[in-house]
C-alpha cells in the first residue's frame, strides 16, 4: 500500500465529485493545505460543501474555490477576511452555516471518533441553539450538536513518513488532526517526507491509519497579520 503520491493532482485523482463534502484544515491561512486546495480547484468539482474554520482570503487558500464558484456551502466559524465571500453570500450565491469554533472542532472530532452527537453549553440562548435539541444535565441546559464527516479531508502537516504518520508544527496544527480523522478519505500534504522510524512514536499527532494518501508540497505560508515589535536598542 503506497501512500505517497507524486503531486497534489495525482493524490486527488478519482476522489473528487460534484456535490461532495470536503474538510479543509487550517486556521486563517496558518496550516492550510495550499497545494491540495489548488488541486481541488483544478479538478473542477463543484457544488462543494466545505467545512473549514475560515474561508481563506480573496486570492489564497479557499478563496481560490470561491473565485471559481465551486463552493455551494461553507460550514465555518469566521469568514471575515474574504470580500468575495461577502459578495457571494450577500447575493445568495453561497450558503453559510456558522458554528462556534469549539463546536466545529468538536463536531469534526466526534465524526472521526464514531460519536454521532454530543451536548454542549456553547450557544445556549443564542440563535445557534434554534431548532436544536435542548437537554438538562445537573440543572444546566445544553444543546445537542452532531458529528461531522466528509467525503474528503485535506490537511497540511509539517512532517510525514511513508506510513502516513504526521507531525504538525506550532499553531499550524489547529483543525488538521480532527479533520484527518473525519474524512472517508484523507489526503495530507507535508513540508518534508522523513524516513520511516525518524519520528518519535510518542510525538506523532496523527497516526498513519487516518491518512490514505500523502504528498510533499511547496508552501508559501502567507501571513495575514504580520505584527512585530521593535528592538529597543537595535
Amino acid at each position: 500500500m503506497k501512500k505517497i503520491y507524486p503531486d497534489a493532482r495525482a493524490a486527488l485523482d478519482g476522489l473528487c465529485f460534484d456535490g461532495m463534502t470536503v474538510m479543509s484544515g487550517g486556521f486563517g491561512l496558518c496550516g492550510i493545505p495550499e497545494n491540495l486546495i489548488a488541486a481541488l480547484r483544478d479538478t473542477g468539482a463543484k457544488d462543494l460543501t466545505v467545512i473549514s474554520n475560515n474561508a481563506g482570503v480573496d486570492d489564497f487558500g479557499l478563496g481560490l474555490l470561491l473565485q471559481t464558484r465551486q463552493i455551494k456551502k461553507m460550514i465555518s466559524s469566521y469568514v471575515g477576511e474574504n470580500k468575495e465571500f461577502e459578495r457571494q453570500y450577500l447575493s445568495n450565491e453561497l450558503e453559510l452555516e456558522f458554528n462556534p469554533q469549539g463546536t466545529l472542532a468538536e463536531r469534526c472530532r466526534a465524526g472521526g471518533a464514531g460519536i454521532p452527537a454530543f451536548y454542549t453549553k456553547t450557544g445556549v440562548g443564542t440563535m445557534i441553539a434554534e431548532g436544536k435539541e435542548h437537554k438538562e444535565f445537573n440543572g444546566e441546559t445544553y444543546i445537542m450538536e452532531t458529528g461531522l464527516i466528509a467525503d474528503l479531508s485535506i490537511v497540511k502537516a509539517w512532517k510525514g513518513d511513508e506510513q502516513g504518520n504526521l507531525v504538525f508544527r506550532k499553531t499550524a496544527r489547529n483543525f488538521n488532526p480532527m479533520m484527518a480523522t473525519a474524512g472517508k478519505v484523507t489526503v495530507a500534504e507535508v513540508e518534508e517526507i522523513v524516513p520511516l522510524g525518524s519520528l518519535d512514536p510518542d510525538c506523532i499527532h496523527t497516526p498513519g491509519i487516518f491518512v490514505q494518501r500523502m504528498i510533499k508540497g511547496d508552501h508559501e505560508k502567507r501571513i495575514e497579520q504580520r505584527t512585530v515589535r521593535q528592538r529597543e536598542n537595535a
Partner: protein
Amino acid sequence: MPWDRNQMAERAAKELEDGFYVNLGIGIPTLVANYIGEDIDVTLQSENGMLGMGPFPYEDEVDPDLINAGKQTITELRRTSYFSSADSFGMIRGGHIDLSILGAMEVSEKGDLANWMIPGKMVKGMGGAMDLVAGVKRVVVVMDHTSKNGDPKLLHECSLPLTGQGVVDMVITNLGVFEIDETGMKLTELAPDVTVEDVKASTEADFEVAV
C-alpha cells in the same frame, strides 16, 4: 476624566491573579497583557491551540506557523505547549481557563452579551467567542460605555443577536466598573471625575450604585 483604552486595559489587568490561565480577546483586551503585574505569574491561552503565548516577534523571529487567534504573528515562551483546536476548546469548554477578557457591542443588566453580529450587515462569524463565554470561569467585558453615536451599550436587553446568555461577570467601560450576578448589575468603581449621574445619563440598564 474617563479612562482611555490603555487605562481600561490597566484596570482589567487588576482582575488577574497569580497562577491564572487567561484568554484575551482582540482589541483593548490584547492591551491587558502590557499591564500584568510583575509579582504574578499568568499564562495566556490562544484558542487556536496554544498555552503560554509570548509577545509579538522581532522582525527576524516572525514565523507563519505561529499566530494567535487574531491571526497576528506571536512568539512562544519556555512554558509553551501547542495542541489541536479540539483540545483547545476542550480546555475552554471544560472550565479550565480562569478568566476571559473580551470586547462587546452590547451587554444587558442580566449579563447577556452581544459581540458577534449585526443583522443586515456582513456577518463575519462568532469564531471562538461563544465557546469562551460559555466555558470560561469568569468573563470580563472591556468596552466603550456608549457607541460611536452615543447610544448606550449597557441595556435592559440586548438588541443584537446574543453571544451568550447571562455570561458576563464584570464590565469595564471608560466611565467605570460594573459587576453582574444573579441579583443584577452594580456600579462598583468610577473613572476619575466621572459622577454617578454621568454614568446614569449614558446607561439604559438598571444598576445599583456601590461605589
